[in-house]
């Protein structure tokens, strides 16, 4: 086991964890906001995938990762609009619409990719890390933690912002009550539809940015189905975090590490089957869910449409 304390292994693990964890973090922050407002967004995978594809196209066209991330976020937002119209405004089943969004996005991105690129997979240049002065020279972990591409720091900032927003602002309070007691919020004169729409659009935008990060910074290319269930993991991360952004951060990082474990182990010469590694994050979710089964608490009105006057 001594190889596991090797600095190269730790560096690879932490760096890999960040690389794989950041897309998860964006998406799970979005899902946290949506779940808090009472929406279970199963279409998250589709929003990430759309963001990954469209964002990649934009980055490829302009050569600018920021444009790519922004366009990816916009694409995710537009996909979320479908959910806003069907689920928030018309009160239709969130799970069916979510599945429809995921299936359509998988089909559409694969189709467009096939039409535009065929079997070729153009690559983007690697994104340079931004070394934070002083901190990045901390031994062992400093190099991987503090010399990351800029969007990573943006993601950390977003956690802070979301946490503050949900706890301290009036809109944050309204958002939480839309998830717990939409009827009371309505009675208090606030539009549940407006609050939930805002939450869903934010969620879509964040998922789109996460997907775009995955294809632009993480992989440097787009292949169909690149998200590979990451959207679903993000839903779980948000659920386990029980609506607290800081927990989404910890969860995303842990999942990112388990996703990148293969690479890290290969660095020190330990080979384990790739299937084991692919299963690992999901196995850990199930174990966590079994252990903490009693504690899982979701907003009371999660998944339920709010239609005024209906019981």
């Amino acid at each position, binding site marked *: 086991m001594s190889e596991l304390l090797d600095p190269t292994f730790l560096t690879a693990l932490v760096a890999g964890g960040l690389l794989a964890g950041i897309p998860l973090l964006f998406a799970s922050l979005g899902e946290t906001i949506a779940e808090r407002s009472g929406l279970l967004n199963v279409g998250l995978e589709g929003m990430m995938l759309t963001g990954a594809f469209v964002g990649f196209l934009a980055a490829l066209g302009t050569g600018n990762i920021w444009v790519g991330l922004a366009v990816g976020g916009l694409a995710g937002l537009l996909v979320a609009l479908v959910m806003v119209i069907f689920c928030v405004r018309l009160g239709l089943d969130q799970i069916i619409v979510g599945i429809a969004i995921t299936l359509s996005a998988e089909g559409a991105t694969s*189709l467009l990719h096939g039409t535009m690129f065929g079997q070729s997979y153009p690559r983007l240049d690697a994104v340079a890390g931004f070394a934070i002065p002083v901190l990045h020279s901390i031994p062992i972990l400093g190099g991987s933690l503090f010399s990351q591409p800029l969007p990573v720091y943006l993601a950390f900032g977003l956690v802070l912002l979301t946490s503050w927003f949900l706890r301290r602002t009036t809109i944050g309070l309204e958002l939480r009550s839309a998830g717990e007691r939409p009827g009371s919020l309505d009675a208090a004169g606030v539009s549940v539809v407006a609050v939930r729409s805002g939450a869903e659009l934010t969620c879509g935008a964040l998922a789109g940015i996460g997907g775009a990060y995955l294809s632009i910074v993480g992989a440097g290319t787009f292949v169909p189905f690149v998200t590979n269930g990451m959207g679903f993991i993000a839903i779980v991360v948000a659920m386990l975090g029980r609506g607290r952004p800081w927990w989404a951060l910890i969860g995303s990082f842990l999942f990112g590490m388990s996703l990148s474990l293969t690479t890290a182990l290969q660095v020190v010469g330990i080979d384990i089957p790739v299937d084991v590694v692919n*299963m690992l994050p999901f196995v850990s979710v*199930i174990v966590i869910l079994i252990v903490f089964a009693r504690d899982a608490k979701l907003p009371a009105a999660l998944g339920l449409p709010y239609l005024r006057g209906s019981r």
Partner: protein
Amino acid sequence: MSAPPAVPLTETSTESLAPSRLAGAADATLRSVGPIALALFACGLILLAIGRDPLSFYGDIIEAGLLRPSGLQDTITRMAPVLLIAGGLIIVFRANLWNLGSDGQFLLAAAMVAGTGPAIMGALPAPLGWALLCVIAMTIGASWTLIPALLKAHYGMNEIITTLMMTFIGIGAANLLVKGPFKGSSTVPQTAIVPTDLLLPVIPGTRIHIGVIIALVAVGIVYLVLSRTSFGTRLDVLGANPRAAAHLGVNVPRVIVVAFAASGALIGLAAAVDILGIFGYMRADWNPAYGLKVIPLVFLARLNAIAVVPFAAFFGVLSIGGEFATRQADLPSDFLLLVIGLVLIFMVATQYLSDKRARGETILPRHRQRGAPDV
């Protein structure tokens, strides 16, 4: 008190309000066929936009999936796993439970059947061997739903999440099995092969294996159990309102576990007929991913196990013909996911409009009139 979950898309909602049975039947048909037509139209526009001819594309699908004798036989064969999975999904959906983990249940059962198949078929008389393998597959499928079912039954844990997680674990485990203990003697990572003469018998004069008949019988049984037994009623009550079900004396945790187990068992059986009927072995990373694609079919059939048959036939034509059509048009076969996804979207939209019409409301968007209360 929180609102009871809306039970969407079951067959009870509007028929009673419709003026006559005939109108009701017409409405039901429109609701089922309408979304498919709209989705095909929308996909036609998309095909036009990317420079393909939609008419020849759909023509290819019908030609290869329906008109060619070999294609028609493939289509009917494809219906076997689809029908069994649909039956499995209907059981849980009736109780308003979501089993989104069918791919994991399917693949793990397939790996077990393909892995143990050659030995079992070599040791036992063929009919016994098939029966034993089907039982193994059903047990595996059912057991893979156990954790989500127990977590849901006892802690109310969201089964959407747990079944999805179990599906990813199941896919990984199936691959590990095929690459590891079940790996055959060939260099490619795949299981040993069940000899062709020990595969499920075919209907004389065709290539269609009897798995299709097994599947038709199975959905028939599902239909009867759901519509004629007290278990079916319990599922419906549970689906309508879990709290009311508990008050009526339904043992809610037990019904949840039994429903999930039955669902997983049928999905496992689907894997058994696919492996024993067509392939005789399993390659690593093989995943037909029926799971999410079958969901629209069962909703279009409005959770009626018999009514799912024509939709399974439609899916068969679409997938068999689609393989040919997408190859002809030089498109990835994932295009069909888009068709299925759009069918689902148009389905909920049609459902909404038709519910509104049944209630006598306008189906046009309501515009706020000046001075009218803010609704």
